[in-house]
């Protein structure tokens, strides 16, 4: 007698439960972002200045590092930690410009084959040993010998010699010009390692488990390593002997590892200061509306793009590629797949690397008529079912290959729908990341593929993505393109390089081996109490380094001059345009109370109902 009733009741109950939870998660707040730092910000005019000292910064972090050797393999979870512990020769600031780090100055020969770096003289490792040229030499030779992750990008196979002119002058000589070297040295996998710890004969390589620094890293950075509990947290403390006088401002940094997006967001609100785990994008307005939380958005050099398979007859046809590009409405993709969080990709290179970006080389704009016109002229007739067919009668179907994420799920559906409008059928195949890389990059088993990637820090990235090597997704092969790219990589003259990269982008716009889709929205999420992040101090602080971060809450005792600065962010278009009146966050507790009340009432009602029925 009870089964159907149970089922009904349970369904009702579950519905209420799910409703209350989703309402909770959605926050029931209007989609509106507070103006960044509305109350004005206190600026450190000088990178070496702490208006207030002390405090612990709790960073909610997304994953476990693979090891504490930051140069061996690509290790995204290590990077935010390594940036505090180690230094590079030069580094990138928040605008992707190269700024000094361990090297206070450098010279590049006109043909970009000789690089001279002058090191700072007051740098000590965390164990007290001074840093010298020996450490730099060891690091780069180890990268070459043990195939560090950056070895390929740095072209270390062309490295003829790295010599110490004196303790504080390093000279790199390459057998061929190597212009992208400086940008790549500033980017990834190039932290300087302590020679006196790593370089011992009993170690087989730099990942030998016997090396103590692999579990307890020793660096030169603003923070020293204290403790790491796998899966739980990493603790760092201030390095009192840091070479930048007066820094860091903080006492401690704690990286708390919370990989789950929703849990990380809640942990951040409850007890965190900085959120590194990417929250669901649609939660950003809610986070921004949370009192005491700042969400700062900006464009990044990471880009989603659609690649054509240049090895297949159909997609090798340039007119066909243009037809697809005309059929894609990228604004529609941005709003439907990314809820508007991002930027419609402009140009064939990323605008955020501004010196190399060519605004004249643009992909085609959305134009259904042109798309249909081209497809008709190519002989693809529309059949009775609305789909186009080859002249021999088989249906025109494109195989779209990509990997599983929420964005790609949505994006591929939108693309399928858009191409349906010009009569092209799309079969979607979403794999896991490893399988995708194998199928798409190596086997080239696709018609069109969607992926994302970092296009900086140097436009040489264009050669990597469309020239030689295993990362050429479309399988594009154009001798003229390769020649120009090699020329650009072998000259030290920046304005000449710029001209060459501009022509490369023009070639890409004419040939269209890919369609740029969406530029990824970058965002910093942190508590308003904190200030002095990389984006507050462009040109002074390296990307993601917390050396100048300090707390307004600690300011009470020391009066300082307060200046209001305009945030230096100039997104190409505001990600969230529908700025309505910010609603106060009465939200969460009320919703919860309501939900609990409803549940209780339902339970009582159900109980009474059953009781009466039985009577």
């Amino acid at each position, binding site marked *: *007698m009870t089964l159907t009733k149970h089922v009904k009741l349970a369904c009702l109950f579950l519905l209420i439960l799910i409703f209350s939870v989703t309402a909770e998660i959605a926050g029931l707040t209007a989609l509106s972002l507070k103006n960044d730092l509305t109350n004005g910000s206190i600026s450190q005019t000088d990178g070496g200045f702490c208006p207030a000292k002390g405090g612990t910064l709790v960073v909610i972090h997304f994953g476990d590092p693979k090891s504490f050797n930051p140069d061996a393999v690509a290790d995204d979870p290590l990077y935010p930690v390594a940036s505090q512990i180690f230094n590079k020769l030069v580094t990138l600031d928040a605008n992707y410009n190269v700024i000094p780090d361990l090297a206070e100055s450098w010279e590049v020969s006109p043909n970009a084959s000789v690089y001279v770096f002058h090191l700072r003289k007051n740098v000590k490792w965390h164990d007290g040993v001074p840093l010298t040229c020996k450490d730099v030499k060891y690091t780069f030779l180890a990268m070459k010998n043990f195939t560090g992750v950056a070895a390929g990008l740095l072209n270390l196979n062309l490295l003829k010699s790295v010599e110490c002119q004196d303790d504080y002058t390093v000279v790199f000589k390459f057998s061929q010009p190597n212009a992208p070297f400086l940008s790549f040295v500033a980017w990834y996998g190039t932290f300087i390692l302590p020679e006196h710890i790593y370089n011992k004969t009993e170690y087989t390589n730099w990942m030998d488990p016997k090396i103590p620094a692999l579990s307890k890293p020793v660096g030169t950075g603003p923070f020293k390593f204290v403790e790491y509990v796998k*899966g739980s947290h990493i*603790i760092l403390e201030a390095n009192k002997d840091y070479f930048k006088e007066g820094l860091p401002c903080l006492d401690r940094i704690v990286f*708390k590892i919370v990989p789950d997006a929703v849990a990380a967001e809640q942990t951040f609100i409850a007890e965190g200061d900085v959120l590194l785990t990417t929250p669901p994008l649609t939660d950003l307005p809610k986070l921004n509306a949370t009192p005491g939380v700042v969400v700062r958005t900006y464009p990044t050099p990471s880009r989603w793009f659609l690649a054509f398979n240049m090895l297949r007859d159909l997609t090798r046809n340039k007119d066909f590629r243009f037809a697809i590009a005309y059929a894609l409405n990228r604004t529609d993709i941005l709003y439907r797949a990314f809820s508007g969080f991002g930027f419609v990709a402009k140009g064939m290179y990323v605008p955020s690397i501004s010196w190399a970006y060519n605004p004249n080389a643009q992909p085609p704009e959305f134009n259904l008529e042109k798309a249909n016109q081209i497809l008709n002229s190519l002989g693809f007739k529309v059949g009775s079912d609305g789909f186009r067919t080859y002249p021999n009668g088989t249906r025109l179907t494109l195989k779209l290959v990509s990997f599983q994420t929420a964005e790609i799920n949505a994006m591929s559906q939108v693309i399928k729908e858009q191409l349906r409008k010009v009569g092209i059928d799309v079969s979607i195949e979403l794999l896991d990341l490893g399988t995708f890389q194998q199928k798409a990059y190596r086997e080239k088993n696709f018609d069109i593929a969607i992926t994302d990637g970092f296009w900086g820090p140097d436009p040489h990235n264009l050669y990597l993505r469309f020239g030689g090597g295993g*990362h050429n997704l479309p399988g594009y092969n154009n001798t003229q393109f390769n020649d120009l790219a090699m020329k650009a990589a072998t000259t030290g003259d920046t304005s000449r390089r710029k001209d060459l990269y501009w022509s490369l982008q023009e070639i890409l716009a004419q040939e269209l081996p890919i369609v740029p889709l969406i530029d990824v929205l970058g965002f910093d999420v942190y508590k308003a109490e904190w200030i002095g992040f990389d984006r507050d101090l462009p040109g002074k602080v390296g990307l993601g380094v917390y050396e100048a971060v300090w707390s307004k809450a600690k300011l009470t005792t020391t009066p300082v001059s307060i200046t209001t600065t305009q945030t230096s962010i100039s997104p190409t278009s505001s990600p969230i345009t529908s700025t309505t009146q910010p609603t106060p966050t009465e939200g969460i507790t009320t919703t919860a109370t309501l939900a609990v009340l409803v549940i209780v009432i339902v339970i009582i009602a159900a109980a009474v109902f059953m009781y009466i029925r039985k009577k």
Partner: protein
Amino acid sequence: MSLVRHTSKKIAQGFFVIIISISIIFFLINLAPGDPIQFVAGDPIFLSKELVDYYRKMWGLDKPLYERFLIYLSNVFLRGDLGYSYRYSAPVIELIKERLPVTLLLTVVSNVLAFILGVALGLYASRKYTKLSDNLLSLVSFILNSTPTFLLGIVLMLAFSIHLKIFPVSGLIDVRNPKTGFMYYFDILYHSVLPIATLTFVLLPMYFKVVRDTALQQLGEDYVILCRAIGLDEGRIFKKHIFRNSILPPITLFMLQLGYSVAGAAITETVFGWPGVGRLLLDAIYQRDYPVILGVYLLVSISIVALSIIADLVYTILDPRIKTGGAS
């Protein structure tokens, strides 16, 4: 005597089961698409030929599959060496050892809690069959059973950590103000309340249902009617007879669950940022960290085999009717 023979036979069988299951998994993960080297490089623009060759050679992936299989088996069973993790460049055995206590705290405690609560509530519900309390309990267990783990975890987190602020949101310890000594362990316990509660609620309905249904079945048996006819007190019938006869199925379940508990509870661990074996395994699968996947599965198969042997022994004690060595 026959018990010893029976058990040693079971152990020998178990050994074969372990070898077979580990072989299946070895070939399965190696035949699955994807390549661990892709994950060393992250973004494909890092993938140079030198890098690929270097790591292939270092990990022995340049050798043919059958050769790698023989090397792996001899390393594991002759030298007790589970190999090195590709991702962490650390011995697999160390990685598992670090995380196992944390995982066992979570899984064993919640299994025991779910077992005890499930049996008690199941018996209670069967006694109150079709009464209000039975209906309510069945309803709740139905809902819990159909609620996904992550949803339940997040609901509990929102209710008790975010709104009521009784428990911490996630993690193993309070990293802002680390504790020492006794308070350190108390802190871990405090942080484990919600994850344990989540997992308990997830496991509970299974025990509840099994016990309730078995007890109801027992209620219709002749011996219960006889007991009632004699005029035995209902409470005594339940305590003495129905309880003993309804306890065997949940014990089987309990042992089976306990066998899996070394593999952790990946979803609960992920939701609560709990550094357990489940998360280790999940990450290893995503990143094609073959040695870690194999290591964890080896551990799981060993523990399942061991617990099924123990379960056999426990049966003979609980139910004298089960003859050891005989046909079941």
